[in-house]
C-alpha cells in the first residue's frame, strides 16, 4: 500500500511565505517522508525583487525547451492523446505575435508576470492569491476555493484551473482539482539559491534567452541588462508593474 506522510500541507503557506523548502526522503519503496529545510536564502524580504528578462529575438526553438522544462519540473502537461487543450493547465506557453501591417513576427514565452500590483491578488476573496515580499506571486492551494475570479482578473491569461483529477504531482508542488494554479517562478528552487527550471534548461542548452535575478540588486546581471537596454513589459499601460521584462517586442 502506498502511503505518503506529509508534514508540509497544513503550514505550507507560511513555509512558502517564509521561504522554506521541502525535501523528500524515501523510507521504503512507495513510502516517502517529506521534511522541511530552511531556505538557504533566508525568509523572503522586500529587499529582493525577483524578475526575469526575456529576449524575444532568441531562436524560436528555445521556448519549447523552456515549456518542457517547466512541465517536467512542476508536473503539469499531458501526453497528446490524453490532452484536453481547452481545460488542461498551461503554466507557460509560447506565444507568436505578428504585426499585421509589416508582417514582422516574434515568438516569446508568456507565464505569470509576477506583478508588483497583481490584480489576481487584489480580487481573491480569501487571500489565497498572494504576493511574497520578494515579488513572487503564488496561490495557496489550501485556501483557494476555486472561484476563478483571479483568472477573470489576470490581464495575461496566465492562470489555469485544475479541471480534473491529475497524476504525477511533484512533492514540492502539490496541486489540487478545483483550485487555480500558475507559474511559481520555481519558488522551491529560488529559495534554495537555484534558478527557475526554464532558465536552467536554457542555460544548459547554451542560451541566455531568459535571464533571472534580483531586480533590486544593482550588481545583478538582470539589473545591469534592464538598465542598459530598453525593455518592454506586456500591457505596461495597466500599471500592474510586471516582474517579467521583454526585449525585442
Amino acid at each position: 500500500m502506498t502511503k505518503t506522510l506529509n508534514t508540509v500541507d497544513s503550514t505550507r503557506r507560511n513555509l512558502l511565505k517564509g521561504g522554506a523548502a521541502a525535501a523528500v526522503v524515501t523510507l521504503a519503496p512507495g513510502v516517502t517522508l517529506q521534511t522541511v529545510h530552511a531556505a538557504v536564502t533566508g525568509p523572503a524580504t522586500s529587499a529582493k525583487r525577483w524578475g526575469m528578462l526575456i529576449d524575444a529575438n532568441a531562436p524560436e526553438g528555445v521556448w519549447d525547451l523552456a515549456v518542457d522544462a517547466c512541465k517536467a519540473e512542476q508536473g503539469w502537461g499531458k501526453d497528446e492523446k490524453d490532452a484536453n487543450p481547452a481545460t488542461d493547465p498551461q503554466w507557460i506557453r509560447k506565444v507568436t505575435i505578428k504585426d499585421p501591417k509589416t508582417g514582422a513576427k516574434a515568438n516569446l514565452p508568456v507565464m505569470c508576470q509576477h506583478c508588483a500590483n497583481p490584480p489576481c491578488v487584489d480580487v481573491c476573496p480569501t487571500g489565497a492569491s498572494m504576493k511574497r515580499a520578494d515579488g513572487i506571486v503564488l496561490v495557496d492551494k489550501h485556501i483557494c476555493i476555486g472561484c476563478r475570479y483571479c483568472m477573470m482578473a489576470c490581464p495575461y491569461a496566465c492562470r489555469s484551473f485544475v479541471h480534473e483529477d491529475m497524476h504525477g504531482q511533484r512533492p514540492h508542488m502539490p496541486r489540487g482539482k478545483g483550485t487555480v494554479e500558475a507559474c511559481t517562478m520555481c519558488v522551491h528552487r529560488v529559495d534554495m539559491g537555484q534558478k527557475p527550471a526554464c532558465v536552467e534548461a536554457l542555460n544548459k542548452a547554451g542560451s541566455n534567452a531568459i535571464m533571472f535575478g534580483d531586480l533590486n540588486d544593482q550588481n545583478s546581471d538582470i539589473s545591469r541588462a534592464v538598465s542598459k537596454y530598453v525593455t518592454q513589459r506586456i500591457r505596461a499601460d495597466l500599471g500592474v508593474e510586471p516582474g517579467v521584462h521583454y526585449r525585442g517586442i
Partner: protein
Amino acid sequence: MAADTTVYKEIEGKGGDYFSLVGWLGVMIAAGLGSTYYMEHHGHVVTGMTNAIVWGTPHVFAVFLIVAASGALNIASISSVFGKYHYKPLARLSAVTALALLAGGLMVLVLDLGRPDRLIVAMTKYNFKSIFAWNIYLYTGFFVIVLAYLWMMMERRMVPHSKKVGLFAFVWRLALTTGTGSIFGFLVARPGYDAAIMAPMFIAMSFSFGLAIFIILVSVTYKWSERPLGDLILFKMRNLLGVFIAAALYFAVVQHLTNLYAAEHAGVEAFILMDGGIYTFLFWVVQIGLGSLFPLALLFNPATGRTCQGIMVASILVIIGGLAQIYVIIIGGQAFPLQLFPGMEVSSSFFDGMVHAYAPSLPEVLLGLSGMATTLLIIAVAVKYLPLLPTSLSDAKVDPHHVSEDA
C-alpha cells in the same frame, strides 16, 4: 393616508396543485444537487467551462438571481421609504421574494465553486481589497437586514420602526447591486468589462428583473389562491416596470455608445454588436428586441397593457431578456480574447487571440435552474406558513378613495 386595514393570511396550500408544484421544485433542486456532485466528482472538465471561459451558465443564473433579489425589494422600499401606500400590502412578499432570490443565487454560486467544501474558508478568511469579499458581507448583511425589516413589518409593535429599517435596507440593496456590478466593473484587463457604468447599470437591471419576477409571482399566487387582485395595483406595477425597462435600456445604450467612442474598445464592440454570432443575436434580438422594446410596447399599448396576460407576457420577456443580457455580459465578455499585444495578431497553444468557444452543458443548466427552483420553493413554503399575502388586493382595498378609470 388611509389607516392600514389590510388583512394578511397564509395561503391554504392543501390542494394537489400546491403539492405537485412543491414536488416538481424538489425534483429540480435534486437535479441541481446531482449536477453539483457530478461536476465536483469529475471536475469542471464535464462542463462547458474552460481556462478561457472560466465563468459559465451557473454564473449567469447566479448573477441574475442576485441582481433580481435587490430589485424585488423595491416594492417594500417604495411603500416604506417613499411613502407610496398603494404598495404597502405587498411589502412583506417583496421582502420574502428578495431573500428567496438571493438564497437561490448564492446557492448556485457556491455549488459551482471548484471547492464548495471550503465555504467555511470563504467565511473565515477575508482579503478586504477584494470586491468578492465585500460582497460576502453585503449578501449576509442583506439577509440580516431584510429579515429584521420583515419582522418589523409583521410585528405590530415594531411597525412604527419599519420605515427606518426600510430606508437602511434600501441603501444596503443599492450597495449590494453596486458590489455585484463592480465584480465586472473592477476587471481592468477585460475590454468587455472595466467600466464604472457597470454598477449603476446593474442597479437599473435589478429594478427591472426584480419587478418582473414580482409581478408574475403576485399574479400567479392571487390566481391560484383565488384572492381578488384589482387592476389598480397591477397597473401601477406595470407603469413602474415600463420605467425600469427603459432605465435598464438607457444604461445599456450608454455603455455601448461610450465604448464605441473609444477606439481601443472598437474590437469588443464590433464583437458584441456585429460579429459575435450567438452573442450578437442574444444582444439585439433577445436583450434589446424581445427583452426591452417588445415588453415596452406590450405594457404601453392599451390593448395589451390593460390585461393581466399582456403584463405577464411582458414580465416573462423581461426575465428572458435579462438572462440574455447577463449571458452576453459574462460569457460574451470572456469569449472576446484578452488583448496582450494590442494591434498585433496573436496565437498560441492557449488560444491567445482567438474568440473562445463555449457551449452550456446540461449539469450547468440544471444547477442554474435549481437555483430558480430553490427561490420558488422558499416562497411557496413562506406564503403557506406565514401571513404574507393580503386576503384581497382589490382596488377598493388597495385605495379606498380609488375611482375606477372606467367610471
